[in-house]
């Protein structure tokens, strides 16, 4: 596996390098920039990140670097683009927030930490060795704790940061324990070598490994029963960070888990499919049932995102190229729908300070555009046609059915009815419950948020109708497996 170092190998890491450049530029502006350039820091960050996204939009060929430590495939770089798009929307939504007095002094840190976590996610999904995978995982988690606690004066944000840190550390420990078992069984940490080694030498210890790895990743993905941190952290974190956490972090972890299971443990899918089966049923059901009772919209979306993670896992359990396609497509659609919801929540929060579902009563009368966007987001999350969520749900169910999981899909589908109920509660608050004395007053949202919401709505409306996206993903995943 050891190859000679060749600088052309760095070209394979095009996306990591350009992200690093963006990071360094922002860091330099933040550190040495005068008052004037600091003022424009948020916009600069958006523009730089937008360039980075466009620069990496064409997927790279399958390749590996550093002796197989780093592996990439067309689908991997597509996933990076998907994450980039999501991050870009988050950055747009946070422009006016970073200019508020509280956050202003720390906005440099906000961008730096955010990009570092994204860098960690990049490493995680394109690693060919568990060591790099673990470094990626840690790089994605630890700065995240700092991000969550970024609003210094807010004790809830602090508490959330601490909670996240402890669970992240704990899950890393579990994950490492799993890795040490795996090393004991296989004698190597290269994905390909492990796969070869464990196919010859099947021990029960392998199942223990699998359980620890799944548990470690389960924390990141907030699968039930590893979800207990989610609601508190989502509620306590600043809304922009919550949205980042709920879509980008989740999407990358899901794809990383998919790669690990497909590449390393593809030998016996039956074992991990059995575990996943139970995890999915628990995740979807518990997430949905708890979401019903939530009155705070951030907590509400926390539980909704738990159950969405369960749906995403259906693409993994399928264990096929079709599953991979459906998963990436689902993540993309989920990014647009969830960020539309968070975008509305964050502008409403900034303009009125309100977060409760009851506060949204009669929103359609005062802010019709925002309510329509929120409604589209809810319908898309619930999987109602002709919005994109319907298509992504259909495809992810199709991939699981193709692999024979009829009962599982039936349970998931029955759960969509529960989820429809609570998504409709939000719609009901905005459109039907019009008697509200202290409704949110009409306001104008800032331009950047508007742009981001328009992008999200365009995604929700067009991604399903335009079949080329799914077709393209499908071609890429066939190339990558």
């Amino acid at each position, binding site marked *: 596996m050891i190859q000679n170092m060749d600088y052309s190998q760095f070209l394979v890491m095009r996306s990591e390098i350009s992200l690093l450049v963006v990071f360094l530029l922002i860091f330099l502006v933040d550190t040495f920039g005068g008052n004037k350039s600091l003022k424009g820091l948020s916009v600069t960050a958006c523009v730089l990140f937008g360039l980075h996204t466009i620069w990496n939009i064409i997927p790279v060929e399958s390749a590996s670097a550093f002796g197989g430590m780093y592996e990439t495939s067309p689908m991997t770089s597509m996933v990076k683009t998907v994450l980039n798009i999501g991050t870009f929307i988050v950055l747009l939504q946070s422009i006016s927030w970073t200019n508020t007095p509280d956050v202003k002094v720390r906005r440099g840190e906000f961008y730096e930490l955010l990009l570092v976590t994204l860098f960690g996610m990049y490493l995680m999904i394109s690693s060919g060795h568990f060591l790099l995978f673990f470094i990626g995982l840690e790089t994605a988690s630890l700065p995240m704790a700092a991000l969550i606690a970024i609003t210094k004066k807010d004790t809830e944000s602090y508490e959330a940061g601490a909670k996240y840190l402890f669970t992240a550390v704990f899950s890393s420990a579990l994950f490492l324990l799993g890795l040490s078992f795996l090393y004991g069984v296989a004698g190597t940490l290269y994905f390909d070598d492990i796969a070869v080694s464990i196919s010859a030498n099947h021990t029960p210890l392998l199942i223990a490994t699998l359980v620890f790895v799944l548990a470690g990743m389960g924390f990141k993905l907030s699968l039930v029963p590893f979800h207990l941190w989610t609601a508190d952290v989502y509620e306590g974190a600043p809304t922009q960070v919550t949205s980042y956490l709920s879509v980008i972090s989740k999407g990358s972890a899901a794809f990383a888990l998919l790669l690990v299971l497909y590449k390393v443990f593809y030998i016996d899918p039956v074992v991990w499919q059995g575990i996943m089966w139970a995890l999915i049923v628990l995740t979807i059901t518990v997430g949905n049932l708890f979401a019903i009772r939530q009155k705070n919209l951030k907590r509400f979306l926390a539980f909704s995102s738990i159950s969405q993670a369960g749906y995403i896992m259906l693409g993994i359990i399928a264990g096929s190229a*079709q599953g991979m*396609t459906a998963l990436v497509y689902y993540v993309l659609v989920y990014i647009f729908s969830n960020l539309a919801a968070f975008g509305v929540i964050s502008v409403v929060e900034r303009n009125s300070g309100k977060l409760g579902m009851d506060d949204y009563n009669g929103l359609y009368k005062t802010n019709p555009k925002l309510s329509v966007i929120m409604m589209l987001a809810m*319908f898309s999350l619930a999987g*109602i*046609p*002709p919005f994109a969520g*319907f298509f992504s749900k*259909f*495809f992810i*169910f*199709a991939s699981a*059915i*193709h692999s024979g999981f*009829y009962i599982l*899909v*039936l349970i998931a*589908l*029955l759960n*969509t*009815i529960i989820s*429809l*109920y609570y998504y*409709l509660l939000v*719609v*009901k608050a905005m*459109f*039907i419950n019009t008697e509200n004395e202290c409704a949110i007053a009409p306001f104008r949202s800032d331009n950047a948020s508007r742009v981001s919401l328009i992008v999200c709505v365009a995604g929700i409306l067009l991604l399903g109708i335009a*079949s080329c996206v*799914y*077709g393209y993903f*499908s071609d890429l995943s066939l190339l990558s497996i």
Partner: protein
Amino acid sequence: MNFLSLFVLIPLLMMLGLWISRDMKQIRTVAVIGSTLLLALSVYTLVEFLAERAAGNTATMLFTDSCMWYAPLNIHYAVGVDGVSVAMLLLSSIIVFAGVFASWKIDPLPKEFFLWFMLLSTGVFGFFISVDLFTMFMFYEVALIPMYLLIGVWGSGRKTYSAMKLTLMLMGGSALLMIGILGIYYQSGLHSMNVVEIAEHGNIPMNWQYFLFPMTFVGFGVLGAMFPFHTWSPDGHASAPTAVSMLHAGVLMKLGGYGCFRVAIYLMPQAANELAWIFLILTGISVVYGAFSACVQTDLKYINAYSSVSHCGLVLFAILMLNTTAMTGAVIQMLSHGLMTALFFALIGMIYGRTHTRDIREMGGLMQIMPFLSVGYVIAGLASLGLPGLSGFVAEMTIFVGSFEHTDTFHRVFTIVACTSIVITAVYILRVVGKLLYGAVQNEHHRELTDATWWERLSVITLIVCVVAIGSFPHWISDLIREGVEPITNLLSQAL
């Protein structure tokens, strides 16, 4: 582009037009022009269809067109019509047309109302022209979700409860349906979603049919108000605004019957032959139970909602008889019930708009006060209880003749049980007519009320003309439907 796609395109363009409309006048203009175009288009489709058949074209589906949509799953946007779908398109466009006039003075938020109403119509029309399982399912769900807001915002009574109940139950049905559709897709061994292709070349293993047939049948059956999944229907209809009740009872519930017929039975004839008896029992219960429930209700809308349960139950009941005559009857019943129930709901909406009560105990002698509406009500009632010359008679006659073709005891018994619903229907219809229209005026204030306005008359007359047309000239429509039903009954008899 195929002209059938216009059925989807026109409502979408209307939505665009509504979106940019500024006042009530423009909204009405857009709605009237659009719904008239749809009506004209469906008549054109009918004429073209008959001409094509007369010229000797015997393909199962006419005017077919298909373009690839999602290549990895071989999903097409595929359209095509046979006799049954032509009839359904005609029904839908008539009811949309009448519905626009019935909601002439909708308040509040007229623009939003028509936007949702048109989205609902898009789903309905799209469903009837699709021959691809995926697009069919997509349009089916498109038709369901606007109901939530239409009932929730513009409804009356326990509207939020009813809207939620209706939406969740129907979505529950569509959850089963999705399993059914995906199962058919993967088990037919064809890698195709095209209904005709699967029916003609597909070979779904028998053990899978036992699983998939109930899934699809119940999935659509929920919308067809099959016992015990009918409970959304009375609440939903009672709370919905007039035009929505019309479209929902008139067309949307037919989606259920049409789906059972087109997907469940057409694609899985073996399982249909084997399992029909289970659903025959359930639908038999719907027929009689719905009729009895209607007898004891005092709210006009509940009476009609339960009567719809009974009549739509009869549609499914007839479909499950699995022979040409009964199935033809079922489709005529869909048309007939669609028209007369729309008429009923339109009239109830108009009466309620004047008296502000739907309780029959608080009203009486309306014949003296609003003769036009009352005569309309009597005609609708007579059609409902099957007076010869009106559409109900043709439908029920055909159904029961068809059902009696089965000579075994089980079918005979259930046919006789279902026949009793005719008598019970007469009971609840005449009860309402007697209390509401004749007798003494219960509330003196009602004497000041006015009769129908021109737009209301237009809506009512359109529907009455259609009811009489089917009743008086049943031959052409039953021919049209019969040739649509025959390919399915042929498959069924081959499968025996």
